[in-house]
């Protein structure tokens, strides 16, 4: 059932923007404010996007040499069976970590703001079940789902941005570059990780196997650009509304921002629901992307295709996401997740690309 034609440019951008925007929109402002400590944190996003773009180009290069191959297929091709198997295992572990991390943070926020006393495993479990239903049928459904929700997600974000505009104090964003350009540049090491998801060029590769490297490059930059733009708008809004000093204190600044939109006398006084819905969509799409990547990895590495086995993957993610005892611990582990991400999305593709050059492999027609 899961046939899928080649993605068009619009569809490509939609899929990658949905994958990239994730928990970052809620979690990024605080560490970023701590790192940068000037109102120019929006500039860090641009820096981060540029670095991410550069990394994405490595992956594009790799993908275009092996059109239609996923990471799990091409790593044994390039490194041989055993090393490739090892790389695949590492990559699967990485997707497991990120998926569990996204899930746990999402559940944490939901528990904090929506369901106070509901057990954590119920919140996480129901999320996984719904996501399992999405990914168990292949890439076509995932892509279609992303397409369906992308306009809704954008609408929510635009609505939220417009509604919160009245609370923005432009003076909080001034002075621009008051402490020079260096602090926001340093923020790039925080923003970089909010773009995680672009590496799925290596997973969704079947859906654009016939595209030229050049168009892939343009599309990738466009996706990163759109993501960066959304992040920038939100960073500017959070700083404009909450101020940089307050931003350093609040765990989930974006939610607080959404909560403070109030229109007296209007039928709906409060609009945080719009944001929470929009945000659960983004969390769901990026989680599903990682979950899908992991499932695909398990499929292709161990050569098993029995669908019920997806529940084993689900159980693994559930287990890992329930492991930390509280959000503080989750944020501690986040550092390790970031290290793993560095290795998996910069280290592995670079290594594979170099090896591929050395071995002069090229599967492109």
């Amino acid at each position, binding site marked *: 059932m899961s046939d899928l034609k080649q993605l068009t440019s619009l569809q490509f951008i939609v899929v990658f923007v949905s994958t990239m925007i994730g928990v970052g929109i809620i979690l990024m402002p605080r560490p970023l404010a701590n790192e940068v400590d000037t109102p120019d944190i929006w500039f860090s996003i641009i820096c981060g996007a540029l670095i991410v773009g550069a990394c994405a180009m490595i992956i594009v290069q790799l993908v275009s040499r092996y059109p239609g191959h996923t990471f799990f297929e091409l790593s044994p091709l390039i490194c041989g069976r055993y090393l490739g198997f090892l790389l695949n295992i590492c990559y699967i572990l990485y997707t497991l970590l990120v998926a569990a991390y996204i899930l746990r943070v999402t559940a944490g926020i939901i528990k904090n703001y929506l369901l106070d*006393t*509901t057990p954590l495993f119920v919140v996480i479990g*129901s999320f996984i079940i719904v996501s399992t239903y999405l990914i168990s049928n292949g890439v076509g459904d995932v892509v279609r789902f992303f397409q369906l929700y992308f306009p809704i997600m954008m609408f929510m974000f635009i609505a939220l941005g417009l509604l919160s505009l009245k609370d923005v104090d432009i003076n909080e964003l001034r002075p621009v570059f008051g402490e020079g350009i260096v602090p926001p540049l340093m923020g790039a090491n925080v923003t970089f990780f909010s773009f995680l998801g672009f590496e799925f060029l290596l997973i969704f590769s079947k859906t654009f196997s016939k595209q030229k490297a050049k168009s892939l490059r343009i599309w990738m930059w466009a996706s990163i650009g759109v993501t960066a733009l959304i992040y920038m708008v939100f960073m500017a809004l959070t700083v404009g509304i909450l101020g940089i000093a307050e931003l350093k204190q609040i765990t989930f600044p974006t939610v607080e921002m959404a909560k403070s939109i109030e229109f007296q006398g209007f039928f709906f006084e409060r609009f945080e629901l719009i944001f929470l819905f929009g945000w659960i969509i983004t969390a769901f799409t990026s989680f599903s992307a990682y979950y899908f990547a992991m499932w695909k990895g398990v499929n292709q590495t161990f050569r098993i295709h029995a*669908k019920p086995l997806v529940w084993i993957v689900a159980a693994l993610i559930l287990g890992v996401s329930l492991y930390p005892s509280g959000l503080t611990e989750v944020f501690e582990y986040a550092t390790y997740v970031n290290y793993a991400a560095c290795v998996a999305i910069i280290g592995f593709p670079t290594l594979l690309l170099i090896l591929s050059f050395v071995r002069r492999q090229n599967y492109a027609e």
Partner: protein
Amino acid sequence: MRNKVMIAVLILFLLTGCWDSREIEDIGIIMGIGLEKSEEGNVEMVNQYVVPSQIPSAHGGDSNKIPFQNISLSGDTLFQIIRNNSFESNRPPNYTHLKTILFSSSLLKSERADELIDLFMRDHEFRRTTPVFITEESVNDVFSTQPTKELFPAIQIKALSENAGRNFFIPENLSIGDMSKYISENKSFLLPGLKLEEGKILSDGAGIISSDTFQFLGWVDKSKMGGVRFILNDIKGGYINFSKEEISDGPLVLELKGSNTTYEVNVEDGKVIMHLRIEATTSLGEDWGNYRTHFREGWKEEIEEASNSRIEKSILEVIKLAQEEYKTDFLNLSNWIRIYQPDFWSQNKKNWNQVFAEMEVTVEAKTTITDFGTQNLK
């Protein structure tokens, strides 16, 4: 496959329960929180509960019923008090509809504001938009008044500022989020004040919270609020009244349509010179002068002059109060130093209040009268 998933989901739903489900009639909606010093020396907290069955319905009914109930308890922490409410009420307090937080000035004299609002910032039920007020009266008395227009004193308090756009002697509401913002930016600030007069709640100037201890420092009188709001640049409207003595052929009222304050900051030999430039747009609101002809050129010069000097005076008065009496910058002027002189600011951030007290402030107001209403009644 699909069916299995469906069944799994359904079973999950059915086997588990509704953990967070609370019927709306079973919760105690809290409209207002009042905090004051208890007799034992710790904190006393007044919670204003809604009593839904007493709310007068649309088709008349008994309007003498009081639709709220105040429960006041004391303890060391607010959380403790909130949970101890259960001794008295079977409805767990729910703060999602909180309209007002009222501090008594006596409490803020001995306790730090940043400590008192910690729970409000930490707990997810509270919102950053809830306005905060300060009063010298007993909080219990304020919450027990019979409100005039609204059903609840807590809402009445919140609604005090509704006309802040028509009368600049009423301060704009300060939300608890903004209060927390001032605190995390280490700034002094003003809490809108209120008082009781003949059983009615009135807006009354503002209380100063200092940046050193985040405690109550003193009052800014109602009459000085105009100057404060010119400095804060949050004027949306108001009026300037000139008596017979102040203007020839008076009295006369100018209605303020809008005002914009621009700031100019210079640092010379380590001394800050700040220049405020106010541009006020007004129209003639009411004129008792029989001999003024509004069609003659130059009729408004005198009035504009008077208005300028009035605005300048009111501003300087407030700045004097801040610089000399309280020696703390509750006017958020540090913001402009931060923006226009970032280097100087980063060096002097720590001892800002001292720098502020020695700062030189000059004011220049420029009033323009744009129109004089629909007729010239002469």
